[in-house]
């Protein structure tokens, strides 16, 4: 490979990106040195095993990726805003919609949710950390370096360009000759292993580390949603692992799995991908349902309506999620029987989902609703998501799907599900749990402004796509002629996209503004909420709970407030055992990054060396003796007194 092939050349936008990458990578070390923050960064963040800090790092990474994926989206909308536009060429457009999909699903939605669950789950169940804190750090760094690996692809070697679904034969070496899809197979593999470990970690945490008395049916709904999500992760992600490995073998080692000759079967890829891919959709939506359940119950000041049916419907959704994958390719020519079966299973999902929608509505009924920012997102979610759901049932009908398959109607549908479903939920959850992490609320006025911008612009952006799709505009089409008549609605969609941009910029500005000016919050329970995390002081001390609370009911914290009896007696503390910080997960992530990078370019010798380093870190970990440390009673008392104020 020559150097001029190594770097992507010939596009002014790419050069600008390169310059900005170089500037940022100079600015970060210079800034760290100038402010003398190297030690702080290493000791408090890069080596941390604290679930709250890991959660914060996930969320920061997810916000960065939201902007990266958002720029991709803006470029796509700008390219299609007017007919015969020449802003992007076809290849560049392919790369942009591919990375937009990968980044938004895997490196924005997933980490945002995993970030929130890291922050919230141990607090909600009365635990002091997750079951495997060190593994949790490994998960984060594998995700992070997987995401970085994918992100350098657009300046080094070329981005993946076969769609986020990377269907064969298009994604084969023959039709996608750049290293783009090698990045796809390796970056997703590395991040995916991290996600699998997260699933195992939270499954064990929730099953084994709940506060005494918290039976499964007394868990908060968000914890329930994460329990079920973790099970889906454990059973879905290995399929992705295999699919990506086979892709790598086909592209880089000449095997014939998805080839068009020698007995290969390109449809096998589509099946494997969606056997993982459809459960993946529920991995990002079920936690969102959990977040909404928490927020709606809190701000309606009522118990969650139909707790048990909420749980059962999530279990039903998780089972059905593994039985619907074929609906992504009805048109690929299986028999009528196969299509009918998958049509029915797909439509069946609407039933448990409908149950949940009605449960939220009944929770709101006769509630004393306070319209805070998180509540606004939750209220907007219900009608908008229902549009997404109803169009989903339309798409589920196999015979009708032949009409909308791969049109903008589909694009509009899944954005109507994923944005009000997942994105609104993570933003709502972010506003809701922000004071728990940092000790002050985000500004409500700015929050509401950004909410209205996002909610209205979302509909302006995506509703026209339904009509465009029904008029026959196919997805992934980089340009069209004026005579098609697609121009005006695409332009409207572009206007909406600009509004969304303003909304998201306001959101980030709100974080900056609130950090500087928002008053500190001292109660630990700013929303008058229901679950255990609000019984801790804000910001939460390292050990979470000075004494582990004892639970006898759902929303035990709420009832303890109403009845005025505390969940624990605060006197006799015991020393608390906590894990030590450690730099190995970060170092391991770096090795994985280099391993992935060398593999992308088929540089075998360096790849093997990096692989040996990975094994080396595992061996080092095996032989190391690390028994954690104890926090003394005196230190707990000092911390608690400082955070809660002296007891009279």
């Amino acid at each position, binding site marked *: 490979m020559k150097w001029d092939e190594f770097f992507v050349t010939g596009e002014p936008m790419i050069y600008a990106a390169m310059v900005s990458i170089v500037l940022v990578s100079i600015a970060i070390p210079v800034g760290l040195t100038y402010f003398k923050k190297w030690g702080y960064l290493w000791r408090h963040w890069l080596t941390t095993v604290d679930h709250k800090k890991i959660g914060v790092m996930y969320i920061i990474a997810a916000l960065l990726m939201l902007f990266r994926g958002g720029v991709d989206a803006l470029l796509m909308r700008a390219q299609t805003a007017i007919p015969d536009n020449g802003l992007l060429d076809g290849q560049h457009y392919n790369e942009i919609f591919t990375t937009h999909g990968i980044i938004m699903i895997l490196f924005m939605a997933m980490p945002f949710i995993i970030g929130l669950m890291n922050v919230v789950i141990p607090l909600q169940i009365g635990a002091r950390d997750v*079951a*495997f804190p060190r593994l949790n750090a490994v998960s984060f760094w594998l995700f992070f370096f997987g995401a970085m690996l994918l992100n350098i692809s657009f300046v080094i070697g070329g981005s993946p360009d076969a769609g986020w679904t990377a269907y064969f034969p298009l994604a084969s070496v023959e039709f996608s000759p750049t290293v783009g899809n090698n990045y796809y197979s390796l970056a997703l593999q590395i991040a995916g292993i991290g996600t*699998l470990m997260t*699933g*195992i*970690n939270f*499954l*064990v945490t929730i*099953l*084994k*580390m709940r506060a005494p008395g918290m039976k499964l049916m007394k868990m908060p709904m968000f914890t329930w949603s994460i329990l079920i999500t973790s099970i889906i992760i*454990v*059973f*879905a*992600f*290995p*399929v992705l*692992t*295999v*699919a990506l*490995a*086979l892709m790598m*073998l*086909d592209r880089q*080692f*000449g*095997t*014939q*799995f998805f*080839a068009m*000759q*020698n*007995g*290969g*079967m390109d449809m*096998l890829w589509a099946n*494997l991908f969606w*056997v993982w891919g459809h459960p993946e959709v529920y991995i990002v939506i079920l936690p969102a349902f959990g977040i909404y359940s928490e927020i709606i119950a809190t701000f309606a000041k009522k118990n969650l309506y139909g707790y048990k049916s909420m749980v059962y419907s999530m279990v039903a959704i998780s089972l059905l999620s593994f039985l619907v994958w074929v609906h992504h390719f009805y048109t690929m020519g299986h028999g009528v029987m196969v299509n009918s079966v998958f049509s029915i299973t797909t439509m069946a999902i609407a039933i448990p989902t409908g149950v949940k929608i009605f449960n939220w509505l009944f929770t709101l009924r006769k509630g004393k609703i306070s319209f805070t920012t998180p509540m606004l997102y939750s209220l907007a979610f219900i009608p908008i998501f229902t549009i997404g759901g109803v169009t989903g049932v339309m798409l589920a009908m196999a015979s009708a799907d032949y009409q909308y398959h791969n049109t903008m109607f589909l694009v509009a549908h899944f954005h109507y599900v994923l944005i009000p479903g997942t994105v609104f939920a993570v933003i709502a959850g972010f506003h809701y749990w922000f004071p728990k992490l940092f000790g002050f609320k985000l500004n409500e006025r700015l929050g509401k402004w950004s909410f209205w911008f996002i909610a209205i612009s979302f509909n302006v952006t995506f509703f026209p796509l339904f009509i465009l799709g029904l008029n026959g505009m196919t997805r992934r089409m980089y340009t069209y002629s004026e005579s098609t008549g697609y121009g005006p609605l695409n332009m409207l969609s572009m206007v909406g996209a600009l509004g969304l941009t303003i909304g998201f910029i306001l959101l980030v500005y709100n974080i900056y503004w609130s950090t500087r000016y928002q008053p500190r919050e001292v109660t630990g329970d700013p929303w008058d909420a229901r679950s255990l995390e609000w019984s801790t002081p804000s910001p939460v001390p390292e050990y979470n709970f000075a004494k582990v609370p004892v639970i006898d009911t759902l929303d035990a914290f709420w009832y303890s407030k109403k009845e005025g009896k505390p969940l624990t007696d605060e006197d006799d503390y015991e020393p608390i*055992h906590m894990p030590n910080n450690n730099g190995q997960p970060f170092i391991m992530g770096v090795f994985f990054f280099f391993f992935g990078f060398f593999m992308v370019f088929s540089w075998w010798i360096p790849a093997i060396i990096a692989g040996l380093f990975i*094994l080396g870190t595992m*061996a080092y970990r*095996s*032989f190391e003796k690390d*028994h954690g440390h104890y926090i003394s009673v005196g230190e707990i008392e000092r911390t608690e007194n400082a955070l809660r104020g002296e007891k009279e």
Partner: protein
Amino acid sequence: MKIDHSLPLEYSTEENRLKILGFWIFLGAEIVLFSTLFAVYFTLQHNVGNGPAGSHIFELTPVMIETIVLLSSSFTIGLGVHAMRLGNKKAMMTFFGITLLLGLVFLGVEITEFVTYIHEGATMQTSAFLSALFTLLGTHGMHVTFGLLWGSAILMQVKKRGLTPETANKSFIFSLYWHFLDVVWIFIFSFVYLKGMM
């Protein structure tokens, strides 16, 4: 660290119990991984293209040796865990050592078998069937290889530190892993080789 002496050493601390549950769940994920590989294999097993079919290349003798060796190793590691529960460090180490040696023999035979296939012109690139076969067997073989490295590391720790809650926990988890590889092999033996030879 609270140690509960009423339980076996590997279960005696909270951390140990969490690790064992976590590993069982990991094995659940591994079952999905191998199930997917089996599904790929079953889908592609008749897609031989211009290459040989399974019945042309499979030979019973090496496969029988591999099977007997691996099944015996599962038995010896069981004895090893039993010795560990009796607190007999030396017997435990011996049985674990035998297990790893049997694993090494298995790996040797498997590699020889691969070399034979390749000499007969049946490479991973020849046909979809062979791609699936090599990937399934290779993934299992790589698990065994990793197991050899992991098991050796644990043996060294047991030798140096004795049977503590920590080393006993690691040894026990390793035995779960090893039994799992054996189970996968039984499926490979039955549904890849025996069925393929018919």
